[in-house]
């Protein structure tokens, strides 16, 4: 196959995006049609590239000196990610066409959308660090642009996103430069299995930080919940939920599987796993207390990154496979969730939970899609999230540090609890009297198709999990030299799955690793705990409505008994959930999340202001003062250059 084909998924969307910018305003549906068509063509070529097989396609154009070449290389991992990204681009283009059609500055939105798609494809295919950086940094601009499209004050959030992402990207640039000074090559495929020690270790940490920040891990996450409110909704499904996860985890996978060797329980492995576990727990606790559809989802988008980082960080084959599979699954169900959020926002007019309720009958397809995705993200069998999460649990357990699987399970409990809350309050119960739109209808086909396709995918990938594992994940890992060369088979009894062994084992997770495994049992127990917590919560929260519908409840004696019981339950619940969990969650929210914000916003500003004030005072406009600086500087130079000379 001609390697020039690699240029199509990059150039076509970018050119189309520029074309959209200059299209005349009057043409209805043209920009939307163009976006969908271009995304579809890009998907076709991505599929072609995926099918190319073998050692992959490589496009190499010498560019300038110092080893900087225009170098694209589609081998196993990139072409898999490219296919996934292209798939999401098509579905989201379709969805955006419906959602953004009549919105403010929609032309710019579609231009940014297409350019983002092209740049992301470029970043996936890049095989030279400079080329990677070029596309990677270019995404910052479209990120900024897309967030500003939300409403008139969105630029504040956009600036925040830009500065935080920029900070992380600069960390990555430094990491890349360190790596370059270690290896002496800018070509990514030539960097192989370094031991992360010394300068290379610094490079690993910096690059991993950059990649994880792209995926939205803590502490680089704070812009995502703000963007959930301020940015247009398809943006949330497109960038933070889908593309940025794909890109960030893709790069993290390359860093930890190809560029470096991560041994199980090495310092780097612990570093990654710690970030993963902390992200899971903190973000899910923040998600639990949110009262807005989109904001709750956005915190889960952060929390789920933790599972992927944890999985990859384990350094155990099953964990790594689970992390990458979870990335794919997460992109699918989180996309669906955001899309249902968009549908709810468009049809019901709000995303505040207290103003929603009883939508399941009115929007059945959206509701079903939501519940499928919610069960997926919570790890309910047989949906796809269950499989990948179990693999991550296994991997984490195999490292021997029990704290990491426990953190992951805690995450699972609250994930399910918060989705029960979200689903219950949105789709069941009664219509809220405060609801802004009373006659809610099912949303239109252009929005239904993407969400139902992806939701269906969640089911398919869960039930027939061998399919994606065998055809998508396995080739990535099995054919990658990493797996056969450096990952050792973990010594963990019968459950150990050896990826180093060829085909017969075939990732047979479902039967011998999962079905009769106590780890699965613990996970199921987590789901039950979550359900119970939810029931307590519902009883407490909706107590009055519930009691009012029950006439028996008003009987004098029973009433007192109920009240007493309820009070005890309340106390228990309050002590456990409100006191510990909710209080803890609020504390985390206040201290960690807003604390990081405070560092970004206040501390930096304060330090800046202080030095600015001092320096400005010295520039006082007095000529003699300025001249004395010159003379003083000259004196120091003379002392250094003439007196101290050997």
């Amino acid at each position, binding site marked *: 196959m001609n390697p020039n084909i690699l240029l199509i998924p990059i150039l076509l969307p970018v050119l189309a995006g520029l074309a959209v910018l200059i299209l005349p305003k009057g043409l209805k549906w043209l920009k939307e049609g163009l976006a969908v068509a271009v995304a579809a063509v890009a998907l076709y070529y991505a599929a072609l590239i995926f099918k190319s097989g073998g050692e992959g396609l490589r496009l190499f154009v010498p560019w300038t000196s110092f080893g900087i070449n225009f170098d694209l290389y589609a081998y196993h991992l990139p072409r898999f990610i490219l296919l996934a990204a292209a798939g999401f681009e098509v579905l989201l283009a379709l969805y955006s066409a419906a959602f953004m059609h009549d919105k403010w500055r929609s032309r710019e939105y579609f231009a940014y959308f297409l350019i983002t798609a092209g740049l992301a494809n470029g970043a996936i295919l890049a095989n030279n660090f400079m080329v990677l950086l070029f596309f990677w940094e270019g995404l910052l601009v479209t990120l900024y642009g897309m967030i500003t499209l939300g409403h008139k004050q969105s630029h504040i959030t956009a600036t925040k996103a830009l500065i935080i992402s920029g900070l992380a990207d600069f960390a990555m640039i430094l990491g890349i430069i360190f790596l370059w000074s270690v290896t002496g090559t800018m070509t990514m495929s030539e960097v192989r299995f370094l031991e992360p020690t010394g300068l290379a270790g610094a490079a690993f940490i910096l690059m991993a930080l950059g990649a994880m920040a792209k995926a939205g891990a803590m502490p680089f996450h704070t812009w995502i919940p703000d963007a959930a409110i301020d940015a247009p909704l398809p943006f949330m499904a497109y960038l933070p939920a889908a593309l940025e996860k794909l890109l960030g985890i893709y790069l993290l996978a390359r860093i930890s599987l190809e560029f470096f060797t991560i041994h199980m329980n090495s310092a780097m492995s612990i570093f990654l796993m710690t970030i993963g576990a902390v992200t899971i727990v903190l973000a899910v606790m923040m998600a639990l207390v949110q009262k807005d559809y989109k904001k709750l989802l956005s915190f889960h988008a952060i929390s789920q990154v933790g599972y992927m980082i944890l999985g990859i960080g384990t350094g155990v084959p099953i964990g790594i496979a689970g992390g990458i599979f979870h990335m794919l699954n997460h992109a699918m169900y989180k996309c669906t969730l955001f899309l249902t959020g968009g549908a709810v926002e468009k049809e019901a007019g709000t995303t505040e939970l207290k103003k929603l309720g009883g939508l399941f009958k009115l929007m059945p397809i959206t509701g079903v899609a939501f519940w499928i995705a919610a069960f997926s993200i919570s790890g309910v069998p047989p949906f796809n999230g269950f499989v990948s999460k179990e693999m991550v649990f296994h991997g984490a357990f195999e490292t021997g540090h029990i704290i990491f699987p426990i953190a992951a399970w805690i995450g699972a409990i609250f994930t399910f609890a918060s989705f029960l809350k979200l689903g219950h309050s949105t789709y069941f119960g009664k219509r809220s009297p405060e609801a802004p739109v009373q006659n809610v209808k099912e949303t239109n086909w252009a929005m239904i198709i993407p969400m139902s396709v992806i939701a269906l995918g969640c089911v398919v990938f869960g039930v027939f999990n061998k399919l994606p594992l065998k055809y998508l994940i396995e080739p990535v890992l099995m054919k990658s030299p990493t797996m056969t060369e450096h990952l050792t088979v973990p010594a963990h009894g019968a459950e150990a799955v050896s990826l180093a062994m060829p085909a017969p084992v075939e990732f047979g997770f479902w039967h011998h690793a999962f079905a009769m495994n106590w780890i699965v049992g613990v996970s199921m127990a987590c789901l039950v705990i979550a359900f119970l917590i939810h029931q307590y919560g519902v009883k407490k929260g909706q107590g009055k409505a519930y009691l009012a519908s029950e006439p028996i409840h008003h009987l004098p004696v029973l009433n007192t008994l109920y009240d007493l019981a309820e009070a005890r339950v309340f106390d228990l619940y309050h002590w456990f959930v409100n006191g510990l969990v909710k209080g803890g969650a609020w504390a985390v929210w206040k201290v960690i999340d807003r604390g990081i914000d405070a560092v970004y916003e206040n501390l930096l500003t304060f330090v800046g202001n202080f030095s600015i004030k001092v320096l*400005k005072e010295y*520039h*006082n*406009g*007095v*000529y*003699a003062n300025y*001249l*004395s600086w010159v*003379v003083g500087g000259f004196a120091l130079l003379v002392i250094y250059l003439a007196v101290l000379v050997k």
Partner: protein
Amino acid sequence: MVVTYFIFVGLLFFIGLYCLLTSRNLIKLLIGLEIMAKSAVLSFIVAGWARGENFVSQSVVITFIVIEVSIVAVALALVINVYKNTGNLDIRSLAKLKG
């Protein structure tokens, strides 16, 4: 001895610099500038004299004197403008641009 001349070159440069650092009157500042220029002239001529190659140093000095006149002329035009704007010749009134 060449050294003696260069000691005076340094001295004149110092006197000019001292004048620039401490004077308040703009014309005094220009006088300080002139004194510094003289030290440069003396330095060049002494250099040529010491080497016994005084043609090049002289032509350099002549060029420098022409430049000096131009600078002083522009500087004096600036002084007149300052005077028109502020009504005095105090360098302390020229501290509006700061920060």
